[in-house]
């Protein structure tokens, strides 16, 4: 199981309603249902993944989060989860606004472009970084708006989005990120998970 999903599951209370935007094959939803008795719904773009979810008995809507989030009413979920896709939207700001409208709280994870290996790759090799969390080359990456943990942190402050918790993941270690340790955590976390409201 992905460490990221474990962290997300730990952030969620039991018996709540969760919308998983970009739910993939439903792994996270299955985990949340099993461990937290959560009422989970998914939105997924890729047809093959949609079917995998359906076969598992998960509730999933085939659709594009960029254009189809409007179908979900205001505050209709306790939590909305967006795992590693914010950077792939044409307009991440609009999507994030929509997520905050639909969910009472929002959990967003991002691959951290500020991670030291990413930085050194660009600095020493002069090439766009390819890592486990950023496996694509510059010409076929779905990521349009890469950002760092620090970027998203500042973005939330600027837009008056309440940051309830930020967790950094590096391999199997997790740590809480605060204003005071933001610089170091931004350097040593592969992934950042934000709990916003």
């Amino acid at each position: 199981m992905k460490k990221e999903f474990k962290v997300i599951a730990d952030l969620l209370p039991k018996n709540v309603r969760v919308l998983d935007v970009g739910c993939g094959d439903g792994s996270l939803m299955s985990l949340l249902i099993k461990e937290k008795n959560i009422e989970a719904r998914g939105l997924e773009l890729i047809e093959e993944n949609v079917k995998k979810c359906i076969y598992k008995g998960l509730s999933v809507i085939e659709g594009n989060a960029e254009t189809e989030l409007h179908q979900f009413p205001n505050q209709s979920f306790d939590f909305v989860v967006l795992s590693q896709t914010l950077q792939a939207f044409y307009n991440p700001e609009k999507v994030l606004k929509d997520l905050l409208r639909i969910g009472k709280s929002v959990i967003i994870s991002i691959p951290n472009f500020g991670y030291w290996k990413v930085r050194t790759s660009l600095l020493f090799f002069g090439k766009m970084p390819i890592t486990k969390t950023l496996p694509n080359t510059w010409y076929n990456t779905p990521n349009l708006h890469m950002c760092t943990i620090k970027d998203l942190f500042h973005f939330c402050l600027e837009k008056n989005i309440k940051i309830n918790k930020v967790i950094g993941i590096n391999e199997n270690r997790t740590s809480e990120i605060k204003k005071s340790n933001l610089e170091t955590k931004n350097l040593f976390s592969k992934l950042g998970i934000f709990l916003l409201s």
Partner: protein
Amino acid sequence: MSDKLENIKKLNISKPLLLDCKQTVKDFFLAYETYGKLNEFKDNAILVFHALTGDQFVSGINPVTKKEGWWVTAVGPGKAIDTNKYFVICANVIGGCMGSWGPKEIDKKTNEPYGLNFPVITIRDMVKAQETLLDHLGVEKLLCATGGSMGGMQLLQFCVTFPNRTFSAVPIACGTSHSAQNIALNELARQAIMADPVWDKGKYFKKNTQPKNGLAVARMVGHISYLSEKGMQEKFGRKLQEKADYEFSFDADFQVESYLRHQGYAFVERFDANSVLYITRAMDYFDLSRQFKGGLVEAFKNQKTKFLVISFSSDWLYTTKENKDTVIALNASGADVSFAEIKTDKGHDSFLVNEPEFLKTLKGFIDSMHIKFKNEKRI
């Protein structure tokens, strides 16, 4: 045809049914068929609603037409809806012509077929009649109910009118109301029938005949709308029908013409022209939001049923957008809804033909719902 209808299963509904047109009927027949066995826990029943020209003979060989059941691709032993596992029920809609109470049945008041004296019925009337069948068969709660096209419209109506009667539902290629384009196409079909002099204001039965030409044209309209532009082009193109050159006449030179004529006139053998009028009218009147002051959100309020809406990418009769509107309404009402669009060139017909991705999705959903329903029921 009627003599062949005597041996089919019929339920006499004695409970009075108040129709939407305000007439009350009682003691009328609902013809139906079942496949597979209801298990001891009664958690394996699936109700299928048929489309405009369908009937109760979903699978196997239709005993009246001697042809394969209309949904033999999806229903049967080992099929997506596996009759070794599930108990499948399908009833001929009222207004139909496969043994259920319809315009060609005898009106006890006049001792001759109803013809246009048959009341104008609605999708809701059809569904209410079918609910009685569930009581008769001892099915309190269905595992699943499904249907495509008009079958899907009946299903949505069924879920709204009887919110707790099915655990899950798969509306296929349908919408919550009939669009202007669909009403227009239905009107074309009706006009074709009524323009046939044999129709005689619906009294053709007196001469023991049918407005064959009008009915065949009506069916041709349907067949064009069930295919996609691309599918039709690939299937027929400009191919000629068993000839090397044009005949410079109005015979069926092109294969597509021959196909339409064949489909049109084959239909005449098994369907009643007045039934087409009544059933298409019921489809046109269908509008779920009109039944509720608060619109669709109100209609779907408190739904416990788990929905899977399926659309087909090349369906221009009930487009993906229309199907998605149903999903949006269900979502807005807080219902549990899944949605999948099947990418195919086969048009609206996709649910009736062998479309593997569709069948896999249908099977995957129903099987997973069965596990959930068992867990809910047997604990």
